[in-house]
């Protein structure tokens, strides 16, 4: 990774981002525009260089990292044709050793990126490894929103952590986590992520930890040094408020969904008693035997359909909601960090007002702080926008999924009841014919 001039945009898998030194690093080179940028913008294709909502991308100030990031965001909005990194989590397997029992998942990678030595990888990872990765991402990319992981500990001790349903739910969440990282224009180039996907012996790498300090700002630790924030910019204040209300609503939706599942389960219990009463009755009847058996069978079919619906909602709906709650938690802490960075800058700025320092070409402490603030804000804003977009897609998918499941339940029940109508009526017609 050199601090040379940035090459073309990563649309074709080239190294540009990594070649740009991280704004928050101690390096003195500021982003310098590449003469290539102008050319590559047209190489993207006939597509207009504008954001999804139609506003044109600002390429006039090449030094602004936000313009670059905006363009990167553009890439993400194009279809998978321009994606060059595909990650999947599947094939859970149980491992039993003398010390412990645990599950590993197969992490498969396909990529054309030159950051990777091979085009394909397959590695076995366990939850611990994902957890480690996330921590590393948080440490090394503190200005970005890191996607959440499913919860470490099993809820309420009721669920068996080796049960098929639990493992499947977790697998889906881990898959989503990696996909979100892989789709992120900055996080996907993170070295730890690379190692996670490709290393044969991840534990060895983990142990090396400290020895592999990269220029990706790992040295930058944010001390919550108790600086007081003067004025939070409106947009970040709005973000904070939004997250507060949104968390609340998500919590309510979670409670409602749980309540529905509970009511449906109790309804199911009664249905399972209801159906057999009809068959019991059938055994003492003559003409009515078949119709009653028919109804009994129908109720049984509806019961099964209901059971499926409840299971699906438990496995697919609730975990996603909970994930978002975790996501928001980590987002709030990033917002707090941003506040801290701004506060530090403001404090230092105030302090220098009393001192007379020569302005040199070398950035002073204050200017470094200012840079930090601006970069943090830019990163955060870009991430926020993409988060909003993803959130919208995720919830659209989640809720349409819920609607689908419910529709399917009713369709199954409808089919069951419609199928016995001819059975019930046939004897009727036969009778009136013979009269």
């Amino acid at each position, binding site marked *: 990774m050199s601090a040379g001039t940035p090459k073309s945009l990563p649309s074709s898998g080239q190294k540009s981002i990594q070649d740009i030194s991280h704004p928050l690093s101690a390096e003195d080179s500021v982003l310098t525009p590449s003469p290539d940028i102008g050319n590559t913008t047209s190489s993207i294709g006939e597509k207009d260089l504008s954001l999804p909502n139609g506003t044109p991308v600002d390429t006039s100030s090449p030094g602004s990292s936000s313009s670059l990031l905006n363009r990167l965001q553009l890439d993400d909005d194009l279809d998978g044709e321009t994606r060059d990194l595909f990650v999947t989590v599947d094939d859970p397997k149980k491992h039993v050793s003398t010390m412990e029992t645990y599950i590993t998942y197969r992490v498969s990678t396909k990529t054309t990126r030159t950051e990777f030595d091979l085009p394909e990888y397959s590695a076995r990872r366990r939850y611990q490894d994902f957890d480690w990765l996330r921590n590393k991402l948080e440490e090394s990319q503190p200005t970005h929103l890191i996607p959440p992981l499913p919860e470490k500990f099993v809820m309420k001790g009721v669920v068996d952590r080796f049960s098929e349903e639990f493992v499947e739910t977790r697998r889906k969440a881990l898959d989503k986590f990696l996909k979100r990282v892989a789709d992120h224009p900055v996080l996907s180039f993170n070295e730890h992520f690379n190692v996670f996907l490709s290393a044969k012996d991840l534990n060895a790498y983990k142990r090396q930890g400290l020895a592999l300090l990269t220029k990706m700002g790992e040295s930058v630790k944010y001390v919550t040094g108790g600086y007081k924030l003067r004025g939070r910019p409106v947009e970040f204040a709005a973000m904070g408020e939004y997250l507060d209300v949104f968390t609340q609503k998500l919590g309510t939706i979670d409670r409602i969904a749980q309540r529905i599942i509970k009511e449906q389960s109790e309804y199911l219990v009664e249905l399972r008693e209801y159906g057999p009463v009809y068959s019991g009755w059938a055994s003492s009847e003559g003409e*009515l035997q078949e119709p009653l058996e028919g109804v009994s069978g129908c109720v049984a079919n509806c019961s099964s359909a209901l059971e499926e619906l409840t299971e699906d909602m438990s496995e697919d709906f609730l975990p996603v909601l909970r994930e978002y709650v975790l996501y928001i938690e980590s987002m709030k802490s990033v917002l707090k960090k941003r506040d801290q960075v701004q506060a530090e800058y403001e404090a230092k700025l105030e302090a220098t007002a009393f001192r007379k320092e020569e302005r040199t070409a070398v950035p002073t402490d204050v200017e470094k702080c200012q840079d930090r603030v601006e970069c943090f804000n830019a990163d955060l804003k870009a991430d926020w926008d993409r988060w909003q977009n993803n959130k919208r897609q995720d919830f659209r998918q989640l809720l349409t999924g819920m609607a689908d499941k419910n529709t399917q339940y009713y369709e199954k029940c*409808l089919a069951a009841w419609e199928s016995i109508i001819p059975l019930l009526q046939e004897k009727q017609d036969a009778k009136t014919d013979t009269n």
Partner: protein
Amino acid sequence: MEQPSLVVRLRVSKKKLKIGRMADSNSEEIAVIGNTDLTAAELENNKNNTMAEAGTTLLRRMDISVAEAEKRTGKNAVNMQETYTVYLIETRPIDAVTEGQNPAPDSLWRRYSEFELLRNYLLVTYPFIVVPPLPEKRAEFVWHKLSADNMDPDFVERRRTGLENFLLRVASHSVLSNDKMFYHFLTEENGWKEVVFETGFQAKADSRLKALNATFRVKNPDKRFTELKHYSDELQSVTSQLLRVRARVADRLYGVYKVHGNYGRVFSEWSAIEKDMGDGLQSAGHHMDAYAASVDDILEEEEHYADQLKEYLFYAEALRAVCRKHELMQYELETAAQDLTSKKQQREELVTGTVRTFSLKGMTSKLFGQETPEQREVKLQVLEEQITQGEELIKDQNTECNEYVKNAWLDIERFKEQKDRDLKEALISYAVMQISVCKKGIQVWTNAKECFSKM
């Protein structure tokens, strides 16, 4: 005097009354299908067509309905103020209607206790008939949101239709429809009670009740009746179980639907903080509200199914009573026969002078000396009389029993067919109801999905 007879004229009364098939015991069925897709006009038309084919055994034709219910207050037997409900019975000769006139119906008001009185009279007077039941006195098998209060308007409404159903069933019965008291019940408001009491049925009613509850063993029970009694017990048990579980199912279903209403509120609140997603969320929320609200109608319709089941729960009781009555007759016959046999034996002993059976008399006579020939002669005469009477009695009872069996079995066959028809109808309309519920569910969630996809 011409026996007035009344025929079934089914009316679709105010609140979606769906009566199962009703028929005269030997004539064609009146094709009433409890099908929600048929309009009221089509239903009427079906009935009109089949009415023309009904048997010619019925002389007078009359439209009967229980049109309204009203609250009244008055003083009761112990001079206490009470509130009760009265029901308006309307009757009108069919001829007048078909001739194009539309005269006002005759009407009178009756309360539930009068219906009970009528039914008790019928039970006693026609013990071999499976007498149609009344709607329940108190609301039972209630799922919790439904009121168990007798004054509740929904309960009153369901009772109104139940009472009408009762009248129509009686009026369409080949035997019961000819009853004078029944006719008076429909046509004479005042004095009807007195006339009924004058028949002296009350005394019979009391002894009937006693007999129904008594325990006795029949030596040679009639297999058919024994089987039928077992069946009636089965039917009672299974319908009450079904009603109980159904009420619980209804309760739970209510809960599931209503909780969805909460989505409506939270989606609305959430949409307030969203820019693009807001509209989709908001409209989806409205669909969730509609979904939650729809359960009230669903469960109200299901109450009708419950009412149909209840009718047969009570019918099972009536069926059992017919069996028990036969048992009682059988028992009395056996007792009388036994009595006769022992009297004949006593006579034989007196005549031949031999004491074959051990008796206290025999012992005392041995101890205290034989009777005089005159005493014996008197005894013999008394015995002869008793034996003759006994033989007459047994002959009558036998005839009565055979008549009873014949008539009862006729009505039982009629009842069986009616039951099979009615319950099949009930199951069909239940299935139709469920289909409608499913279709509504699909609609709501499809609409919601559309809103979500626009988020």
